[in-house]
């Protein structure tokens, strides 16, 4: 089947072989979620610096420089990262496999065959609940192989989880 055909085509056009993007985008509300995450993270880093700057009489220049650098980085990261992530993050579920693409600077594709799925969970953190989002986690027998689909609308997540559970139950074997 796949193998021989592939090898024939390889000789000519190896240049073009690539993974296509998974079909579905995550919910647009994810941008808000990631922005909130970034804001919270940077606040933790920036706040102590600002407190020190405010309460010390004449702060040394390097301290000012550090605070300004952190501030600039924080703004850039908070503005760029969520939008970049939104353009990258995608997912797809077929009768054969669950397929995701995540990341921004570093990117990762994960593929888990449906026949090897062991559990399907949905999870909602406090911020996700606020925004009506959910994460679907698909685990296999490998400790290193869980596939997370972040930032789905809650109803869509539940639907996907149900779908996957039904297909998994219908597949025999202990998935190792």
């Amino acid at each position: 089947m796949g193998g021989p055909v592939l090898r024939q085509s390889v000789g000519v056009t190896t240049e073009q072989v690539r993974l296509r993007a998974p079909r579905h985008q995550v919910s647009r509300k994810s941008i808000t979620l990631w922005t909130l995450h970034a804001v919270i993270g940077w606040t933790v880093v920036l706040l102590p610096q600002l407190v020190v700057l405010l309460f010390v009489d004449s702060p040394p220049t390097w301290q000012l420089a550090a605070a300004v650098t952190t501030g600039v980085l924080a703004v850039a990261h908070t503005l760029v990262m969520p939008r970049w992530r939104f353009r990258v993050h995608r997912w797809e579920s077929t009768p054969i496999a669950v397929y995701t693409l995540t990341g921004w600077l570093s990117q990762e594709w994960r593929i888990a065959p449906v026949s090897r799925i062991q559990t399907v969970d949905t999870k909602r953190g406090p911020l996700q609940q606020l925004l009506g989002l959910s994460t679907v986690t698909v685990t296999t027998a490998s400790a290193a192989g869980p596939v997370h689909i972040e930032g789905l609308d809650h109803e869509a997540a539940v639907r996907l989880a149900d779908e996957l559970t039904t297909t998994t139950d219908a597949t025999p074997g202990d998935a190792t």
Partner: protein
Amino acid sequence: MAPELVEEPPVLDWHRLDLRMLIVRPLNELLGLIPVLVGLVVLGGGDVWRIAMSGGVIVLVVLFGLLSWFTTRYRITDDQVELHTGLLVRKRLAVPRDRIRTVDLTAKLGHRLFGLSAIRVGTGQHEKAGENGGVTLDAVSSQEAERLRQLLLDRAPARTAAAVANGDAPAAPVSTPLAAFDPRWLRFAPLTLSGLVAVGGTFGVLMNYAQEFDLRPSAFGGLHAVVDRVMDAPIALTIAVLLGVVLVLAVVASLLVYVVQFWGYRLTREDDGTLRVRRGLLTTRSVSVDEDRLRGVEVQEPLLLRLGRGARATAVATGLGTKGESSLLLPPAPIAEAHRVASEVLLIEKSPTRTGLLRHPLVALRRRVVRAVLPVLVLAGVLALVAPSWTWQAALALVPFAALMGWDRYRALGHALTDRYLVARSGSAVRETVALQRSGIIGWRISQSFFQRRAGLATVSATTAAGDGVYHVIDVDARTGLLLADEAVPDLLRPFLVVPE
């Protein structure tokens, strides 16, 4: 026996651990306590209070042994191994028999004097130091342990049921030897770091005792003289002598550790479909791995061992991590032996770990070197700002070594695909060559960092239920990596791949 009786689940009695454990357990614990007791009695200088305390310790240890014997019971039913134990906190452990992946027999010195063995039944459910998912019977007679081992790993229920009822072994075991201890392997012992670790550990313990009992070097006249002479000698000589002494001690200790751990090593294939490793001079260990759970073999070459053309081999099996002791297939031995063991274990004439590997693109070399050198440069930079100038110069002197390490890491990178195996190699401090069954791959992770993307590289990782859980093909040319993954597991990646006709 009438056939219908076999259908009935046999009514099974609860067994106690072997009666001899009443002696063995206190004995084993006392053996471990000997240094402390000697310290208390001898160095205590006849202090009544200290002698009384050591007596108290002995009584407590014996009492504890008695209690644990009286409170521990086990039984093996048709579908479970059950263990009840504990006096104040009653524990009831049950392991479903179809979940059993490994059976380990361990006999410490005390056990062996009395013909006993501890038996540990492992299910491979994320075992962390015996937590959950495993049951240990410490101990039963060696014959009983052997009978249980065969019984628990045999997956032919009818035979087993009959055997349980009769109380004897299912069948006369036939085992094929695959490898055995060779005294010439001892030359690899100094190439492991175990000697250095042992010397360091002993030194630490001695210093601890010296402090505990208020010993000062000045208390001994002889030592005093030695110290004086050392103070007078030139510093270079002192360092050289010290290094020499440590080296000699480390070599001796490494030989001892090797002999103690691996004496009597034997790898056999049993006719009940298990691989069995037996080893140990004082404490003997026997580890049985269900062959159905075997997903491959890993050949490991730590740097020093590699320089001496030696290697270890471990099993990649579901329910066994490769870093633990129980997955060991071959102790440090010639590399050729490691490959031979791999081929014997996997039942292939030519071991897949020997396959000629495809080198990764030269860009990967740049990445490895940059990643090795950059941290050293950053360190030098920081030191130049905050520390005296010789420190950053010393750090800079490390740069060539870091570059060399990066180059060695690149040299290690490689992958190949055989009929049934995905072979991947990486690492410098420990070079690891893994042969993973293609049918054991249960998913892919393909990652590209920002710099990998620009260099056209990717790290293709195969996830599996066995061993480490994931094995990486690091810094492979992105397209080659995708084609590799697609070919290794047909039809899994294909729907998501863009391959122009």
